[in-house]
């Protein structure tokens, strides 16, 4: 029998006992549905966290400061309108940057030399103090504004536009998207290319304004790292602040140490240990993420709850699939029983045992494919609907989160897995059919 005929016959046979097939398919459907939803939920949540984490993607750098008891900066609740009477000049080093809020002693020039002298470190850049007061667009209202001085080592999670160009001479800003409404932009794309005015006060009390171009808009991140500024702008803001007075630049609390590329973990440990001996604490970006991710897990109990739900649903999916497997065995055993004579006839007419086995296996796989396709399809519909509703409602604060992420590979994986389960379940009935002796099937006296 040609394979195409085998497949056609198997599919036709599957639909011969419609009710029985439907019930078996239903069991697989539940398994496929649950498995797909669960996988998509896991992928959605971990993708979100990964995107957040990517905001700290720069490699081969250490953030160094004098040793201290680090405290964590409080979360900010979006921008407040700037009021010259009450608003204080916001210091950038307290602007939500990872190490901000740690009240460490400033690093002296000697400190910087010491750090630069440690093996494995190729350069050291003190993070310059910049402090800004407000931002406005098109002569509109002024809003409190802070710049993340560590923009050089972070990669923003962009809503629109491009990353900062640190080699450019013009002044560039990546604007957090919670400023869009305040500054009168309708969409993130509208803001890209617009010029904004940043206001600041120098150490002598004189006010300055700097105009900069918005090159990108960042999603508000769980890490709330403030606006990004390119090197040219940071340098400009820092020099304006000192008002041309020599030595007025207070020393930086944090410095970025650049590492030799390709350090092994052991070599990195050695560098960190050397810094520790010299009285500095150093953290890689990953170290910080470890801390921050833990914080997120604490803060966003929602995600935690999802992890729990995911586990429970996974268990349901496994139970449903085990039940479905027995369902397939039962369905096909009944089918073999009913079709004893048909099998006998086909064998008498010269159909090989291998082909009989293939026929029944194919029927099992057909049931598996139908059940899993329906389940995956339904899961995609429900997941997209539910994800959209949650993103618009309770989870609106978690920007860039698509709760259910349906990855083609995992969808195909679910279908393949369930087809494989169906095949294995079909093996016993199929081999029973294949072993049947035609003469016993055809006996009727």
């Amino acid at each position, binding site marked *: 029998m040609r394979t195409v005929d085998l497949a056609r*016959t198997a599919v036709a046979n599957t639909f011969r006992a419609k009710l029985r097939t439907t019930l078996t398919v239903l069991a697989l459907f539940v398994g496929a549905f649950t498995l797909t939803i669960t996988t998509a939920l896991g992928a959605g949540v971990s993708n979100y966290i990964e995107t957040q984490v990517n905001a700290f993607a720069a490699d081969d750098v250490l953030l160094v400061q004098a040793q201290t008891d680090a405290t964590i900066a409080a979360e900010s609740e979006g921008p407040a309108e700037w009021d010259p009477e009450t608003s204080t000049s916001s210091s950038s080093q307290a602007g939500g940057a990872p190490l901000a809020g740690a009240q460490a002693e400033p690093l002296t020039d000697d400190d910087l030399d010491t750090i630069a002298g440690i093996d494995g470190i190729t350069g050291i850049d003190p993070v310059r103090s910049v402090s800004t007061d407000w931002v406005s667009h098109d002569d509109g209202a002024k809003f409190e504004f802070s710049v993340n001085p560590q923009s050089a080592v972070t990669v923003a999670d962009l809503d629109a536009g491009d990353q900062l160009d640190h080699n450019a001479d013009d002044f560039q800003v990546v604007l957090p998207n919670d400023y869009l409404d305040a500054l009168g932009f309708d969409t993130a794309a509208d803001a890209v290319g617009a010029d904004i005015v940043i206001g600041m006060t120098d150490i002598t009390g004189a006010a300055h304004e700097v105009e900069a171009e918005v090159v990108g808009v960042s999603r508000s991140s769980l890490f709330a790292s403030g606006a990004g500024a390119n090197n040219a702008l940071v340098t400009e803001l820092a020099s304006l602040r000192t008002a041309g007075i020599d030595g007025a630049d207070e020393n930086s609390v944090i410095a970025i140490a650049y590492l030799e590329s390709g350090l092994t973990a052991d070599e990195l440990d050695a560098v960190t240990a050397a810094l520790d001996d010299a009285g500095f604490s150093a953290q890689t970006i990953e170290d910080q993420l470890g801390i921050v991710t833990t914080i997120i897990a604490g803060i966003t109990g929602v995600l935690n709850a999802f992890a729990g739900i995911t586990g429970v649903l996974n268990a349901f999916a496994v139970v449903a699939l085990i039940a479905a497997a027995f369902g397939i065995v039962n369905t096909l055993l009944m089918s073999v029983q009913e079709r004893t004579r048909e099998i006998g006839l086909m064998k008498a007419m010269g159909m090989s045992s291998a082909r009989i086995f293939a026929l029944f296996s194919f029927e099992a796989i057909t049931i598996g494919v139908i059940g899993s396709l329906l389940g995956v399809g339904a899961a995609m519909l429900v997941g997209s609907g539910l994800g959209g509703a949650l993103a618009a409602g309770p989870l609106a604060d978690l920007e860039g989160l698509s709760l259910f992420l349906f990855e083609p590979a995992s969808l195909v994986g679910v279908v393949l897995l369930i087809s494989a389960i169906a095949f294995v379940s079909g093996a016993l009935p199929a081999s029973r059919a294949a072993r049947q002796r035609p003469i016993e099937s055809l006996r*009727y006296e």
Partner: protein
Amino acid sequence: MNPTTAVDDPAPPALQAVALSKHYGSGANRFDALTDVTVSITAGECVAIVGKSGSGKSTLMHLLAVLDTPSSGEVRIHGTNAQSLSARALNRMRNREFGFVFQQFFLNAQQSVIDNVTLPLTIAGQRRGARRERAREVLAALGLAEKADARAVTLSGGQKQRTVIARALAGSPSVIFADEPTGNLDSATGAVVEDLLFSLHRDRGITLVIVTHDDELAARCDRQIVLRDGRIVSDSAAPVAVGAASEEVAR
């Protein structure tokens, strides 16, 4: 090598049983279905295997059609020992050389007549177009052309048995085995089916092996082999059985 082969016939017989025995079970439960049966059927013969229920006639047919394996003895098809053939070769031979008509129709009730008829061709691996064309030819020859696309369940008994014969004929077999072909039919319809089988034998030279307990049907065949308790008691063509037959007469 074969005592029953006529000396002047150089071609080996189509079907041949040599000292064939078949028993089921063992010890006290042993049941001898067939004991030391030797018979030879030449191509183009029309043979009736006759006997009462339990006489072993169906067992003999199953062994000759290589649907079953003997406990001892040999089945030769065109001179070749069937046991020496691979399972694949046996399947192929049953598919190409043999057609089967059973007392029960074994039709797939929900399928169309033509799909039932094409089954042996499908198993043989023929393409859909070719096998449907062949099936229509055969159905037309048996007067079922207009029923080709009807579902098998809608047919009358006689039409069903003609469909079964069409299925047996589709692969152009050289031998048709018919096990009680009219057992399930009323006498008028049965007569039509009988006529059909005999005309296939007469017009196409197909070897016909009919298993029956119906003496009238047996009488229409060229040759009758009578079985009792698993042994041949008479064979109208074979001198070897005469002894047994006269024994029978004496009793």
